[in-house]
């Protein structure tokens, strides 16, 4: 039996083992889609969705609608981006997603009460008015503050974090490698001056 084994017994991997491991790594990297994010649309990108977030489809739709009011007008937001970048990341603190969902519901309820429809039914301008009338635009974010401060902390800050840690947000800021996003393979192929290495 030991005679048929091609591997050496001294613990050094054989050529076949090395090639198998290399091929597996390459396949995994290709499946992960490393370095493939590009374009002005905030799309799903590379994040793996978390399987345990409390948000329903309505919450994600509402947050996508709010994002269209919070983000610069030249950024188009896709639902998949919000789902993967906001709810798909590792939960920053315990119960963070529950409080985010509660803040989304607060905005949605306010929109229904004072603007005649769910936040998804309103135009981007009206969505901005919803946030203004809640006082969200004039307060500092605070996790344990008033409803407006919590909306600022959980909704607005999470949306901005998701945007500016994505390639699209990095482009807006002129930063190729924002914290949380290494910039993709292309970033490592450029020289210090921006040219090809």
């Amino acid at each position: 039996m030991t005679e048929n084994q091609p591997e050496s017994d001294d613990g050094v991997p054989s050529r076949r083992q090395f090639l198998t491991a290399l091929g597996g790594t390459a396949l995994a990297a290709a499946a992960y889609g490393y370095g493939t994010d590009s374009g002005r649309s905030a799309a799903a990108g590379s994040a793996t969705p978390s399987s345990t977030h409390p948000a329903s489809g309505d919450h994600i739709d509402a947050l996508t609608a709010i994002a269209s009011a919070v983000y610069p007008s030249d950024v188009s937001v896709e639902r998949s981006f919000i789902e993967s970048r906001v709810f798909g990341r590792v939960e920053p603190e315990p119960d963070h997603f529950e409080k985010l969902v509660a803040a989304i519901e607060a905005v949605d309820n306010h929109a229904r009460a004072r603007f005649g429809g769910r936040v998804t039914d309103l135009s981007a301008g009206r969505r901005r008015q919803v946030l203004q009338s809640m006082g969200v635009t004039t307060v500092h974010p605070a996790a344990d503050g008033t409803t407006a401060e919590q909306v600022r902390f959980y909704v607005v800050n999470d949306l901005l974090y998701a945007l500016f840690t994505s390639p699209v947000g990095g482009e807006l800021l002129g930063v190729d490698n924002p914290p949380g996003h290494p910039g993709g393979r292309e970033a490592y192929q450029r020289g210090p001056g921006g040219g090809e290495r």
Partner: protein
Amino acid sequence: MRGKINHIGVVRGNQVNIALAAVVGFLVVDMATRTATSMAYVGGAFVAAAVLIGPEAPVGGVTGLVIHDAFHGAIGYWTGVTTAWVLVFTLVVMWLTNGLSNSPKRQALKPIHRLAPAYTGITLIGGINATAFAAWLTMVLGAQRFYTAVIGFLPGVIAAVGLCMFGLVAVDVTERVGRQVGRTETRGHPLFESEAPGRNRDAGPTDTMAVGVFAIGTGWLLGVSALDVFVHDLGLYPTASEFSAFVTGFLGSGSPIATVVTTILLGVYKYGELAVILSAPVALTAMLGWCTYHEQVLSSTAHGVGIIRGGASDD
């Protein structure tokens, strides 16, 4: 017996008016939500209607508001706070108007150029106090900061003043036209005309009381708004020690003035939120005290001034 029947008739008439106002209020609130009009403007319109039509209008209006929010399953802090704002606004305006309509000043205020400034003042006093109270309530309910709620309600006060003036001018023009065409009988207005001549109603507030309520309300609104903004910005420092280190670094620690200022700022940092929360009980107590004891306060002040001006008193 006849008096009892009349009383029942008046109550039923009020109920019908309130029901009608509730229907109108529901429709107005629904239109406002569909056109994204701030509810502060709608509330201001309700209060102006209280001046021009009667107190049933805002009562019915807020009833329509509550029904609207309940009907849409969207009852929230905004419902209660807006209702409180409209009702407090109306109560203060009615209280101050009562002082006008039950005194000889009413006849002097008959011309529109005197009536309009008087009602502008009354509506402003009511709006300032109602806004301060509603902002405090919003903050206590944990929905918004005091100053952001103030920003939300103040346009409603301006709307109430504007609509009230517009309505008063319109009533005046209608009366003048009516006199021109020979109709001598014009219907009296419930708030700025005596509703029931000869009926003994409560004496309203004096000018001194109104000025005191205006001063206390303005101090409450502006002072607490400024304090709330300051406290809110101090919250950028996570701990008192970090804030203390910043202030000490900014002012130094050598002079006694720097020590005093640092202590005061640290006190604001620690107890500023509490001061904002306690502002309403303090302001309401001050108003109650002023309305009850203003004569004693003023007479003692006048006596004191007299002593200072005239030297030692005889007694």
